[in-house]
């Protein structure tokens, strides 16, 4: 189980990995979304705002109407942000649940593929 603080630290790492990756930024430049992340074991919630492929902010708690809601254990969320798990595999096992369009689900997995090709 991960604490809220640990998840925020993982999110901060994820923000750096995404924003510093030029290929990813270019690829995602048509993608602006509000994401909510829900840790179903701790009840912690987080909001991330992506504007034209850049993660412009993230915070504890939820705000706004999300385009995408990702629900998983706190540990799986952290592992996802650290590139320690394959989101598609977890999604197909029902351990990560995503409320989003199919295109956005693929986009989330594509982010992982670009940053961590071996995951």
């Amino acid at each position, binding site marked *: 189980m991960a604490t809220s603080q640990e998840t925020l630290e993982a999110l901060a790492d994820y923000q750096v990995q995404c924003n510093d990756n030029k290929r990813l930024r270019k690829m995602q430049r*048509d993608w602006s979304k509000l994401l909510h992340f829900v840790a179903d074991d701790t009840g912690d919630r987080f909001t991330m705002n992506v504007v034209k492929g850049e993660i412009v902010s993230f915070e504890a708690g939820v705000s706004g109407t999300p385009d995408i809601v990702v*629900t998983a254990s706190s540990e799986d969320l952290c592992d996802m942000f650290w590139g320690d798990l*394959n989101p*598609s*595999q977890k*999604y*197909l*096992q*029902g*351990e990560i*649940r*995503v*409320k989003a*369009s*199919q*295109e956005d689900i*693929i986009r989330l*997995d*594509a982010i992982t*593929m670009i940053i961590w090709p071996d995951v």
Partner: protein
Amino acid sequence: MGADLTKIKEQALADFAEFINPMKVRTMKAAGLDIIEQRRDGASVWDVTGKKYLDCQTGSGIMNVGRHNREIVQKLKEALDTYDIGVFLLCSKQKADLAKKLAEVTPGDLKCTIFGVGGGEANDAAIKIARGYTMKTKIIYAERAYHGHTGFALSAIGRAAYKAPFEPLMPGFEMVPFGDIEAMRRAVTDDTAAIILETIQGEGGIHIPPDDYLPAVRKLCDENETLLILDEIQTGLARTGKMFACEHWGVVPDVMTVAKSLGGGLYPISATIFKEEIQDFFVPHPFIHLSTFGGSDLGCIVGLAAIEYLEKHNLADHAEKMGARFRAGFDRLLQDFPSLLLEVRQKGLMMGLQYTNESIGPRMTKKMADRSVIAVYTGNDPSICRLMPPLVITPDEVDVVLNALEDSMKELSKEAGLGKND
């Protein structure tokens, strides 16, 4: 030997990822569908490593006559001894033979054909014919529709995600809900060239129109001098238990498009078939729509052989019978797994399982692949599994699919994330 085959597979996947599409490989791997097809026969396909799968996806209905149909392969082999694709500028006996056969097997007074290579091209031609013949511009299409990824056809797709990156698209297209005749009435104007519909929506999730819908659309078209284009690319050629699905409702379109299984799973070919009176548009414009590879001599030989095979083996009736066998199994699944399976929509062997939420389609796809059945959710709606096995599927193979569905659902029932809000 096994290790060598595994290496061949891994290398093929790596090369595909590097030189074609890495995300496709990643997605297929995650779904358990990283299959490199090797042997193909009947309703089955063998991965290069030797693992056998029952194919219920069939490229969304390319394989009505079965995988690698030997009778048609033989016809193609014989044709290759003499012919090549032919020169599209010249007239061709092979084209004429297939066009004549299509006029015979299509309903009503559909008679003339333009050949193409794929379904999108066939629908492009249909829309061009409609605008050219009627001298009107508006095209009405349906929500969730799928008619292909080419120019005019893309404009008639009822899914924004396929279109958004390529806008602006063709002007003059209006979308209406599928199955809603009042919405259709409101959309039709004096300038409506055509209404284009799939007889049964495939990619959108096997949506079957209400029984009075297509006859009412036909009447509406007649009243407004608007052409009715029916896309029978997935539904045609015996898939639904009739040679063409529109026969279930006694409706004859002005233009019909056929592709996929017309190629017998061996050679790409499509056809846009229309009423004789529409031919008048081409009299002053005989070279206005050409396709270099469309209706190649080899493709036409295969197309004719595919239709003859369907007739000789009465596969429309077989589709009806195997569909009924599937239906009995689906009814049991509906009873046993109400938290997973909401509804079944089906005509013959065109079948859609409506799951209770969108995560179930991808998860069932993986579980079915683990049980050696290729059964994939639809592109337009992941809460729906589309099953379109070859029409040559046997009763025993139907039972294999049903058992795999039951076992997969049992396993899935024990997992998290099955609520309506997940």
